[in-house]
């Protein structure tokens, strides 16, 4: 399963993987910080459940994340912490100062471990065995007093009140002696069509000076690059690192010279030298730390400032999680988006006004206008992208869930994800997670068959569930696909009839599939605790519709099923269709517009001289006259409204009577209630190109209105 996941990730751009991890590193860092804070203020005598639970949750989150992302060392350590904390919060053991110490030390080591992973796995691994053993012994009710007297140097350091950082320094010192020396490797990259990835490897060495040095080596083939690398990093880690850019099959690493002894090093001028003793020197250290290692630092061909930086870093072996991002409140971002939206409108207005100018006379100004237009557009795109986060945030939840689910059900499932780097508005990502979880569970539970059933059907025993995301025009399409048994048209139809739904036999397949979105509908033969209680698809559909999205199903019995969810890229922007009523403009969400047509004379029938119905093909639909709903003044107009726009909401359709179809455009959705109040039949407002406000129609309310 993990392989399948990697496959999906590998197909995307390189930065995807790092981005994938980045959120975890940040969250884990925050959790560890929080845990440390809570541990520090924890009063052992009066520790209440809430405190202990809080600390437990922090450890638990870090562990969960680490396990999901495959950082086994972090997961192992935090698992031990979690076990200890679990016993504490259950009051099976009494909290003691030794526990706090050891937990703090463990948090620090976790942080270094994480930082090491964040840096791509280079640098030495802080030892955890000792800590794990100590936590374990405390968790098993080990004698605290004995722990103190027999404790390691590290524990004593902590008890002596020095900073927890020191603990790791002490323990890691033992380890550094075992550090391997510098090696000279020949790296062959290729054959490659494009030499950019090889360049990227070169840049790796520039970006991470601790990695060692790299030099070009003459290559006899045009599509192959050779490098000489001096490094102390083990080959496997180098390979891991290079793989970000070049696939492993195109990499050959051979050792040219055996390990150089440390003695030799001190005469040399290789930047790696101090690192071999300093361990985690490549991370930003706190300034002002004791500079004990600087004497060892050999003269190297680096600028003075780099040298100072290096020396500054060296003495602090504790890695810190690097913050490559800043957290900003959403409201600030939204304000920025608003302002840029306004700028775009102003720019459009200027452009319109300057269009009539003579190009010869106003050449400079018109050139400036063109620049302004381009810059504004770029600015808008950049600002909008702040709110965008990759789908991987959602996708990453599934491998583990599916694994557990599959083993619970006794099924074999491969999980493949595609297009994880596809970006989506943060608000949407949060809201799409639950419906997607449901769809994926459904696929595993109802879609993929048991292994023997699959074998009998001539399919591989292992089923495949594919989750993919891709941009299509202004929307994102997320597909959940499985190669399971698919849906049976007959079963759905008979089930629908059982439930008293009217279903003609000549319904098209896609209409039949839509039936499973009816409330309480489930075609699962067995009701399991996973899904199949009939409260699934209707909720999925409702949630997605609420996001202005649509759901489509495609299925072939025996071959599998595909659910496609189409969503707008952001909640703040909507595809709208503007309609004119009298002199006013109203906006309809394009996702709910089915069709529009010109009304033929006398096509409207009235019922009881009040309600109007229009016949669209074979269906009578209620007519909603927008001019009446919104009391639009229509003095100078003789022509009655004669354009019908059919909209659908909550499964019903109504025909809106309007005067004009003005066009389709993307609009920024604004809240009307932030300064005003809820307006009936209106879901929000937007600003048109001319700066005027247009109200966005609430299709659900309009459809409901026609019902009574």
């Amino acid at each position: 399963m993990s392989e399948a996941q990697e496959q999906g990730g590998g197909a995307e751009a390189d930065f995807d993987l790092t981005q994938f991890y980045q959120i975890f590193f940040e969250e884990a860092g925050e959790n560890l910080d929080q845990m440390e804070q809570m541990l520090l203020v924890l009063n052992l005598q009066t520790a209440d459940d809430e405190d202990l639970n809080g600390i437990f949750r922090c450890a638990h989150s870090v562990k969960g994340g680490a396990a999901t992302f495959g950082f086994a060392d972090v997961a192992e350590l935090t698992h031990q912490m979690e076990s200890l904390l679990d016993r504490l919060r259950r009051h099976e053991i009494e909290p003691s100062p030794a526990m706090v110490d050891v937990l703090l030390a463990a948090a620090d080591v976790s942080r270094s471990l994480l930082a090491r992973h964040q840096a791509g796995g280079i640098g030495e691994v802080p030892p955890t065995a000792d800590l794990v053993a100590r936590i374990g012994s405390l968790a098993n009710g080990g004698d605290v007093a004995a722990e103190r007297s027999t404790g390691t140097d590290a524990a004593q350091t902590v008890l002596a009140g020095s900073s927890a950082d020191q603990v790791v320094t002490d323990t890691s010192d033992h380890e550094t002696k075992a550090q391997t020396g510098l090696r000279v490797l020949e790296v062959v990259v290729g054959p490659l069509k494009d030499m950019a990835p090889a360049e990227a490897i070169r840049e790796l060495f520039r970006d991470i000076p601790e990695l060692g040095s790299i030099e070009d080596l003459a290559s006899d083939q045009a599509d192959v690059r050779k490098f000489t690398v001096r490094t102390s990093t083990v080959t496997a880690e180098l390979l891991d690192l290079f793989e970000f850019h070049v696939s492993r099959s195109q990499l050959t690493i051979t050792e040219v010279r055996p390990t150089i002894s440390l003695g030799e090093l001190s005469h040399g001028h290789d930047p790696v030298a101090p690192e071999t003793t300093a361990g985690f020197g490549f991370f930003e250290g706190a300034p002002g730390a004791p500079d004990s290692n600087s004497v060892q630092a050999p003269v190297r061909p680096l600028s003075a400032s780099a040298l100072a930086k290096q020396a500054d870093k060296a003495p602090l072996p504790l890695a810190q999680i690097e913050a490559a991002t800043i957290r900003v409140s959403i409201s600030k971002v939204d304000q920025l988006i608003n302002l840029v939206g306004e700028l775009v409108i102003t720019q459009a207005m200027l452009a319109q006004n300057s269009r009539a100018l003579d190009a010869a006379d106003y050449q400079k100004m018109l050139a400036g206008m063109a620049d302004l237009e381009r810059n504004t557009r770029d600015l808008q795109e950049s600002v909008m992208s702040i709110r965008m986060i990759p789908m991987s945030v959602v996708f990453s939840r599934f491998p583990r869930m599916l694994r557990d689910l599959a083993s619970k059900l006794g099924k074999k499932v491969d999980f493949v994800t595609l297009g994880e780097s596809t970006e989506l508005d943060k608000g949407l990502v949060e809201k799409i997670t639950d419906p997607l979880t449901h769809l994926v569970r459904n696929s595993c539970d109802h879609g993929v068959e048991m292994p023997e059933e699959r074998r009998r059907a001539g399919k591989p025993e292992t089923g495949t569930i594919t989750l993919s995301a891709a941009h299509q025009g202004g929307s994102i399409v997320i597909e959940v696909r499985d190669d399971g048994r698919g849906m049976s048209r007959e079963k759905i139809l008979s089930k629908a009839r059982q439930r008293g739904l009217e279903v003609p036999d000549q319904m098209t397949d896609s209409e039949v599939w839509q039936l499973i979105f009816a409330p309480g509908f489930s075609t699962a033969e067995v009701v399991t605790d996973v899904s199949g209680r009939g409260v699934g698809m209707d909720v999925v559909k409702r949630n997605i519709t609420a996001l202005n999205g649509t759901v489509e199903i495609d299925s072939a019995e025996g071959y599998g099923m595909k659910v496609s969810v189409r969503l707008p890229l952001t909640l703040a922007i909507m595809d709208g269709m503007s309609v004119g009523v009298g002199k006013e403009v109203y906006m309809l969400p394009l996702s709910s517009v089915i069709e529009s047509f010109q009304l033929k004379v006398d096509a409207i029938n009235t019922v009881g001289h009040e309600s109007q119905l229009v016949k669209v093909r074979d269906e009578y639909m209620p007519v909603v006259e927008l001019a009446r709903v919104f009391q639009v003044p229509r003095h100078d107009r003789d022509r009655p409204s004669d354009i019908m726009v059919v909209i659908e909401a909550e499964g019903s359709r109504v025909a809106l009577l309007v005067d004009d179809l003005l066009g389709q455009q993307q609009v920024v959705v604004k809240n009307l209630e932030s300064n005003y109040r809820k307006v009936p039949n209106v879901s929000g407002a937007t600003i048109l190109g001319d700066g005027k406000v247009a109200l966005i129609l609430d299709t659900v309310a309009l459809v409901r209105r026609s019902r009574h």
Partner: protein
Amino acid sequence: MSSNELAAGTLPVPAEAREYLTFRLDSEEYGIDILKVQEIRGYEAPTRIAHAPLFVKGVFNLRGTIVPIVDLRLKFNCPKADYDASTVVIVLKLPRRVVGIVVDSVSDVLTLPPEYLKPAPEIDTVIDSDAVMGLGLLKDRMLILLDIDRLMSGAGMALVSEPPT
């Protein structure tokens, strides 16, 4: 009436001199706390809101924010309310919302020490009586000082959604 009685009153009469923005509605002159004023701008036709009271002219776009606009002249039953190039909108920044009010004209900014303030007599007007902070007495003018916050959030303004019943 002594100043003691004033201070003991229920009206939020400030103890220090405050600055007021004064504006005219027909022949009456009103004053509002200058700190509530965000900006003053010309009137442009807003987008009409169906089923809103007549004095709610609609909503307009204030640099990306949708702001409702109330014509105080209609609300206060002024005999005429024309919209021309000199019609002025005062954009108010209230604690929870931004609202525009249409007035005939903005006069000036006055600093009124507390001794110039008098509580308003109990009279029957279209203005919610608790929205009148008091009267500002100048040599030859009388200012009606409005608690604009209270006025705009009152039920009579229909600007706030009614709590669900």
